[in-house]
């Protein structure tokens, strides 16, 4: 199995924001915030500093995107009905898995969303400690949205839109499981993941740069705790996982009924 990953080389990055805007154009990502106050974005650049660090004065950037984690916290909370899905690798081998509306691809390691089946509950967006997901509420129904590593472009022989537009060559995309890839070379050189003691999900976006810049990036941008997910949603997520076979037939209507019931219980409690 391979694992797509990205390196952000902060020594090259000039913080021009082209990646964010190219992503917006590529995927028609809406501006503004969602109803949970999350900025609606798939890719972003935050400007950090100048701030004094133990390693000297630092002024750098946090170009962020979905980390397509090894153990994605967003996938397991998805309460949508599972379906059996067959994935095909580059060599033609296939693998069939039961997946909800978001899953980790067994061949390229990217985390994807099926917009058709997404029920718009927002649990995945809440579960991501990097706020890499947002809810697009512009359509008839809300849908979770995030970076796909542009697998749709890659399938057509392209590269991720952010990588293509980057004037600095600061975004390096490739297969981290291939020891000869450019991303692996960066990992050997010491590219780091934004992980903390409490948040170890195995993010596949890594950052390379001067000590002082990485220090500032880590201090400002590494999540220190896993998100507290709305208990009701979590409960539903577990319910649907554990008993998915039984719930299959009930589908969304059943979910809605459960939802209403838990809501009533909530209001009973408050009264």
């Amino acid at each position: 199995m391979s694992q797509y990953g990205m390196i952000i080389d902060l020594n090259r990055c000039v913080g021009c924001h082209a990646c964010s805007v190219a992503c917006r154009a590529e995927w028609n990502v809406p501006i503004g915030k969602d109803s949970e106050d999350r900025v609606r974005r798939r890719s972003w650049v935050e400007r950090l500093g100048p701030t004094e660090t133990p390693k000297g004065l630092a002024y750098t950037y946090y170009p962020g995107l979905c980390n397509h984690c090894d153990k994605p916290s967003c996938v397991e909370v998805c309460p949508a009905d599972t379906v059996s899905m067959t994935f095909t690798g580059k060599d033609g081998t296939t693998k069939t898995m039961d997946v909800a509306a978001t899953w980790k691809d067994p061949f390229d390691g990217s985390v994807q969303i099926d917009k058709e089946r997404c029920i718009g509950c927002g649990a995945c967006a809440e579960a991501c400690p990097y706020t890499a997901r947002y809810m697009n509420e512009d359509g008839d129904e809300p849908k979770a949205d995030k970076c796909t590593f542009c697998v749709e472009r890659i399938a057509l022989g392209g590269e991720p839109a952010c990588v293509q537009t980057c004037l600095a060559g600061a975004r390096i995309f490739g297969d981290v499981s291939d020891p000869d890839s450019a991303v692996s070379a960066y990992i050997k050189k010491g590219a780091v993941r934004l992980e903390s003691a409490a948040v170890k999900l195995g993010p596949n976006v890594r950052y390379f740069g001067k000590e002082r810049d990485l220090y500032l990036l880590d201090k400002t941008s590494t999540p220190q705790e896993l998100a507290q997910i709305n208990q009701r949603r979590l409960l539903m997520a577990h319910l649907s996982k554990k008993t998915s076979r039984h719930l299959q037939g009930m589908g969304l209507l059943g979910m809605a009924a459960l939802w209403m019931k838990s809501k009533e219980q909530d209001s009973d409690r408050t009264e």
Partner: protein
Amino acid sequence: MAVKMTRRRFLQSTGCAAAVLPFANLVKADDSFVKYPYVSPGSMAGTQTVTGGICEMCFWRCQVVGKVRDGKLVKLEGNPKSIDNGKSLCARGNAGVKLLYDPDRLKYPLKNIGKRGAPKWKRISWDEALDECATRLKATIDKYGPQGITIFPHGSSAVYPMHFFEHVIGTPNNSEASFFQCRGARDLAYLATLGVPAGEEVDMANAKVIFLLGSHLGENVHVSHLKRYLKGLENGAKLIVVDPRFSAAAAKADVWVKIKPGTDTAFLLAIMNYLAENEKYNVEYVDDNGDGFDDFCEGIAHASLSWAAKICDVPEAQIKQVADMLSADMPHVAIHPGRHTSWYGNDFQRERAMACLTGMLGAIGTVGGFVRPIGPKLGRFSWPTPMKEHAEEYSLRKLAKVHKFSPPGTPTDLIRNAALSGQPYPIKAMVTWGQNPIQTVPNQAQTIAMLEQMDFVLVCDVMPTDITMYADILLPEVSYLERYDYIKRGTQWDFAEEHQQYIAARMPLVAPETKDHERKDSVWITNELAKRMGYGEHIKAKTAEEMVDIMLAGAKPPLSLKQLRAEDGIHLQEGEDPYDVELDVVFYSEALEEAGYPPVPTYTEVPQPPAGYARLVYGRLPVHTFNRTQNNVWLHQESTLNPVWLNEQSAKKMGLKDGDMVELVNDQGVKSRTATVVKVTPGIRSDTVYMAHGYGSMNPALTVGVGAGVDDQSLISNPSIDPETGTHGMRNNFVRFIKDGKELSIPA
């Protein structure tokens, strides 16, 4: 609206019968729709790549392609054939789509039937608009002469009308923002020293040392320019950055010189004096190509390291360190001339010092130095010049015998002063084309007073920028994505690579005509105006396409739009080696001496902030160029405000914290119209505050950009004029903050 009956009942009623209400006869034939043959949706899923785009979200002009799906431009990308920007674009380039589809864009000719500054617009036809412009401009010429008209142009679409007004009508009063509020002092100083304008083609990609004085590369973004810079850093070039602020470039630097603003020339003189005294300069190059070097050395002999250290508030050892670094790797040293250089009103002298330092290091025409790439030839296109002598006779700087090293046109303040005083002659009509003098020119109150005394104000633009509020007639122009006009040419960005040249003529990526507007291009507008004013005989190109084809035909071998279309928008040809060119270096300038200016680069002290105020310096955020980009929803989202940088020690004393909202007021009592957020940082000197330009638009018709952040120009009410060039120095303005209605002093 209370209605008694339902629609269906009404439609079935007799009152509705055709005989009673003959709607059909009243409505003209409808041509909005044609019958569409059904095609399976599959074939419409993809996009078509349209080539030939040239970006103009800034003026570097990257080559782009449009991804068009079914008539809608969905994305802009770098043209993969480009040897300049390649497949890359910056944030602004990527966001061009949102300019195209901005509902705030100008759509029809408008007539102001209200007041200037508080316009009441009435849509009028092109015929009416052009007739009125022609009549009123003619009236100005009849009453005051051609010099009674002034033009404020900016951008590639403004070139054709600018030359019409200068050459055919014969007014010398052309205030080009790109010269008088930007690059003029730099180019004239290099011309006076090295015989060529500076440009920004310095060979950073192959340099061993890159020296930036105030240039904040990274915050200021031009794609191929940054590629050179980053290639140099990748190759191990040492980076020296001189800036009162820890800029994006300083963050990548080996040496950051935290200089006191306004003292750069003293810093440069001390370096040159040290190099001369210790014979650490390029003796061979100077002996072969130097002019007046001994007199020059004598003239800067006072500039000791300790003298400069005191003036610049920089350790003596650091000045020596910089000088030694430059010397150690000469001649492969990239002394960047800068771009926006109209800072303090002593800018010509500073740029002279930059050019002399380049010469002392012999960093000319050599790998890593000041290199002038050899671009492809093009045919010339211009209006005839029947009024050339008249224009020269009425040149304000010639009449006043000032600014003898001015860039082309007339320094802005001479125009504004003449307009305001009526001396030496009245200026009564103003034409603004693509420029927004409100945010470009210092002292907004005076600019507005100038506008108010005009008999006629004509503005042509794409967006309702601030200046459009002052127009009598406002003309809507097509955007850079919908027109022909400019031909971008150059070479491969890395001079060490195979020598190539490119020619790329701008072509529309989407059709300019749609049913809901009547925008036109500047060639059509100017020609129509010329005909109505009686200058039709001088028109050489009937359309923008024809103008471009005339220029392309002069390429060697000749080119055409047709051929460029067949070549995906970019013509590539073999290039020439730009290295091994020597330029004479005028160290001691007799020409300057004769004109009454210092013949040797000279440091002049700049005004200092009064107690409780800090110097306002400004620069860029990479997401904005100016007023026109500020209304872009994607760019706005990236950086909604322009934070004002404040030293953390000062902030502590002032009781301010990062993220507080403040207004600003300058030492002349001019207040910002809006507020912005404070960025508290150790990365700036305590005598200086900094903010990005291109924010705080005042025209509410820019519904996204209006009032977002603070307009730095609104606080620059006291310009200093550079004596040699007449360009505006804009960094001698001092501010303090207002928080919750209370003025806060900024401790030094």
